[in-house]
């Protein structure tokens, strides 16, 4: 169990797919049951990982290593090589959870071609998990791309009116990024060889040699990777595939898309861009650009979503804004910023996932997402209204809910680097409140004006079951995030030491701050002020 748990988690959904294929497509309910069972199974199986990981949370390096470098295709040095650290652990848990929820949520939403829907969904699940587990670039890339296909089909087959456009746009746009990344990977691989090592795709091995690449190449490599991740995140100029994809995708698709797929971009930044090209990342110009794009994303996304007339589009743009916070935290490049960013990725997965579910609930009942169509919903669906309020609050970063913890930590970390950055980013918090509350007012408050809305029935138990874990998670992270911080502590500090060796990653004495020491201001701290 200990040494195969990753594979088990990884392939459970795939097994589900094959089981589904055996069932005739007519009896939809059987299919639904099987799919849900396997999705839940995927989640339950991932639960034992939690205590196992908790014991090892402070151990250095990757844990639950499975397979070995270049044991898969020895002659090119690719390996079936899995392993996780705190960052990927959290994202894996998020994936399994959201996968289950979104499959549960599409029980009634999907009526035609049910079988393939669930089949593709489970394949997608495996793909996403693989991305977070792979310790081998080849494997990573395989999962990274393989996951596009099911998503493409999910959008394209079960999507809305402009599904074809959205699907192909999503596919092309993401592939555009990843192909250049492939070149980057190959370059690293070749460089690793050219400095006298055997060919290998093993990521830990490449960590050793990649920083040695001379700067003028490293910059190009960084941008090759950057494009791939920035499109995935999506960062500001590359975000336009997102609204289309979200608006057209079925609810569950949006949940997964926002909840997990976007995280792959940020995960990529943390896992690859930072440790592989420390020099480039620390280069003030590059870093300035990254931060700048993030800030623009935050403000711009918020402003645009302020103006949307379609709920789903609004939420989509809001996640552009939120992911802006994530990238901001990443490029703050200090423990606070990084761990805040990862935590915020989890939070975004939870709250935005919930928001898409919320939109989906209404859409399932009324088949429209026009805000103008609604109003006074809280009269007819009080429970739903309450849950929505909670999730909106968590998404706008209200304390004691998850959003706040992430955003606060990120902004704190950013401020420590340069107060201007934080100052520019903070308005995003205000705007978030603005567009969410305005949306809430227009949809839920007031009296029911539209006769179609009078008959809406409140959430049924299944839907409640979808929301329950998310709400619990939201409160948990909001009230007691310490475990998450502890899980993130080791990998984050490792990253920081890799990038800026002279950065103190551990306070010498816990209460150092109480008694001022006469130490001269160090280089890093000086950076912040001027």
């Amino acid at each position, binding site marked *: 169990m200990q040494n195969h748990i990753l594979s088990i988690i990884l392939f459970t959904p795939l097994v589900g797919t094959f089981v589904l294929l055996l069932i005739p497509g007519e009896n939809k309910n059987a299919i639904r049951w099987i799919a849900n069972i396997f999705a839940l199974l995927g989640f339950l199986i991932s639960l034992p990982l939690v205590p196992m990981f908790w014991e090892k949370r402070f151990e250095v390096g990757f844990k639950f290593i499975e397979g070995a470098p270049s044991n898969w295709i020895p002659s090119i040095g690719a390996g079936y090589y899995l392993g996780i650290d705190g960052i990927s652990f959290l994202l894996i848990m998020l994936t399994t959870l959201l996968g289950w929820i979104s499959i549960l949520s599409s029980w009634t939403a999907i009526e035609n071609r049910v079988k393939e829907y669930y089949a593709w969904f489970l394949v997608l699940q495996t793909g996403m998990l693989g991305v977070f587990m792979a310790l081998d670039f080849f494997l990573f890339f395989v999962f990274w791309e*393989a996951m596009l296909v099911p998503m493409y089909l999910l959008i394209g087959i079960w999507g809305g009116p402009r599904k074809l456009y959205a699907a192909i746009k999503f*596919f*092309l746009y993401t592939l555009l990024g990843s192909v250049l990344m492939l*070149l980057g990977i190959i*370059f690293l691989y070749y460089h690793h060889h050219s400095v006298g090592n055997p060919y290998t795709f093993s990521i830990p091995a490449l960590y050793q040699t990649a920083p040695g690449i001379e700067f003028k190449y490293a910059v190009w490599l960084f941008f090759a990777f950057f494009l791939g991740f920035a499109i995935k995140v999506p960062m500001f100029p590359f975000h336009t595939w997102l609204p289309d994809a979200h608006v057209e995708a079925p609810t569950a698709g949006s949940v997964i898309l926002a909840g997990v797929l976007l995280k792959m971009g940020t995960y990529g930044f943390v896992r690859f861009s930072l440790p592989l090209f420390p020099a480039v990342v620390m280069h003030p110009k590059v870093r300035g650009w990254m931060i700048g794009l993030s800030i623009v994303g935050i403000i711009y996304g918020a402003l645009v979503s302020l103006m949307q007339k379609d709920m789903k589009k609004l939420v989509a743009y809001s996640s552009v804004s939120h992911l802006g916070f994530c990238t901001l935290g990443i490029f703050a490049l200090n423990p606070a910023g990084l761990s805040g960013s990862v935590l915020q990725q989890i939070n975004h997965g939870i709250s935005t996932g919930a928001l898409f579910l919320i939109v989906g609930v209404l859409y399932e009942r009324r088949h429209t997402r026009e805000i103008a169509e609604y109003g006074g919903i809280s009269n007819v669906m009080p429970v739903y209204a309450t849950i929505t309020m909670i999730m909106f609050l968590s998404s706008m970063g209200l304390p004691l809910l998850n959003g706040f913890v992430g955003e606060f930590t990120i902004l704190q970390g950013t401020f420590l680097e340069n107060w201007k950055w934080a100052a520019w980013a903070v308005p995003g918090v205000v705007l978030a409140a603005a567009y969410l509350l305005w949306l809430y007012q227009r949809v839920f408050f007031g009296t029911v004006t539209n006769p179609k809305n009078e008959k809406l029935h409140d959430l049924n138990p299944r839907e409640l079951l979808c929301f329950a874990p998310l709400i619990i998670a939201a409160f948990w992270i909001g009230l007691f995030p310490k475990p998450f911080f502890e899980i993130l502590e080791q990998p984050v500090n490792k990253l920081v030491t890799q990038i800026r060796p002279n950065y103190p990653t551990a306070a010498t004495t816990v209460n150092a701050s109480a008694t001022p020491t006469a130490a001269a201001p160090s280089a890093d701290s000086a950076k912040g002020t001027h």
Partner: protein
Amino acid sequence: MLGQVAQLFSPTDYLLSLPIVLLTIFALGILIIDLWVPAELKWFNAVTAFIGTLFSLYIVVKIHFFYLSAPSTANGLVGFAQSMLLDRFALYFYYLFLVATLIAILTSVRYLEIEREHHGEYYALMLFAVVGMMCMASAIDVVLLFIGLELMAISTYVLVGFLRRDRRSNEAALKYLLLGAFSSGIFAYGLSLLYGLTGSTNLFAINQRLGQLLQIHPKDPIAIIALITTATGLLFKIAAFPFHQWAPDAYEGAPTTITGFMSVAVKAAAWAMLIRVLFIGFAPLQNVWVPMMIFVSIATMTGANLAALTQTNTKRLLAYSSIAHVGYILLGVVAFGSGQNPAAADGLKGILIYLLVYTFMNLGAFAVIASLRRRDIIGDEIDDIAGLYSRAPFEAVLMLIFLLSLAGIPPMAGFLAKYFIFLSLIESQHYVLAAVAVLYALFGLYYYMKIASAMFMRQPLEREALPVSWGMRIALGITAFATIYIGILPEQFIRAVNWTLGLNQVSSVISQLK
């Protein structure tokens, strides 16, 4: 006198010619038996051809094992007075040809019945074409090379025009023939100049003499003309810009099964020839043909991809896509031409793997399209494939697999092929070229996904289910399985290619090629 004959025809020659001889015998057999086979039992010819191919394959395997057993044959055996070299390289291509032929035969039966053109000649010609290919792959004497080329070419002309009542088929055949003959004329002209320069018809001898010649006069214009005219012939056969325009027409007009066969086996043979001629014969002129190939490959990718974007006919679209693939493979040539290892090795490896993978995925794709053919419907418009999922889910999924593989999405095999090409480019510092190549991969994705979305996301025009013959099923099964299997567990295939190229061994084909 007899002694002379015995000395002219050695056991080695016997061994080397055996696969070819077997194919020939079976082809002739089919031609004769066909006279007695009644119209409704014509599938018997197919069986015969299949068996013949299997026999030939068996012999090839035997040779393979003989090579494995005898390390002295690391560089293969030379036979027929230096005119034929059956090295591992040739062996590899033999495998490709034979497998492609087997699959093509499987797909053909029902197709031809529907077309009401089910004749033994079809299979005979196919086998003769394979004979030609084998000669091309194993010839190191330009004469044999040329004859083999022509044998293959002429058989293919006929096969393309085999649907004599179908105008498109006629046209395709005629165009293909005119252009083919024209190009082979130019090719022959180039060969003659080559002979004139070096006084020999043996590629290795040519290599040496040309080397000496260029030592004396670098940039010898006649040599360059010889190169370019020869290259015209070669590039025409692999359908590279600007000699590619025959391909879409021929592919569209030809019987779909033949289209598959051409796009795979014929092309592979052309590649074998190109590699032999360029890498051996014209090796001294590398500094000339490398930039030329760079230009050609970029132009090919550009033209083909742009052209493919607007196609509404799946066969034509795939034709253009296969031209685009040629562009990619040419990049391997470029990397090889850059000379230094490991780039050269990986470039060549990339070419071979690409051809291997391409054989399966492209044949598969064309097989699916062939299975769309029905009495009244030609079935090669995108509208015909629309909503295929609801009519034949199995085939639709397979088609998706082939398309993804063609687009180079992992874990399909196509990705592996592209991977090696890119790797070799990076290793030979052709970064820009690599970037261009990957960006063109996006174009590819776009038009492949056009087909995919037609299959999965559109409603079918008519809902009747597709009858799929057993042969077709087997063929699809094999190709799809291979496409996925090579994608997921490519190890032994890569090993095989390494063995073929004698990499990580005492004597390497590469060193011998250069």
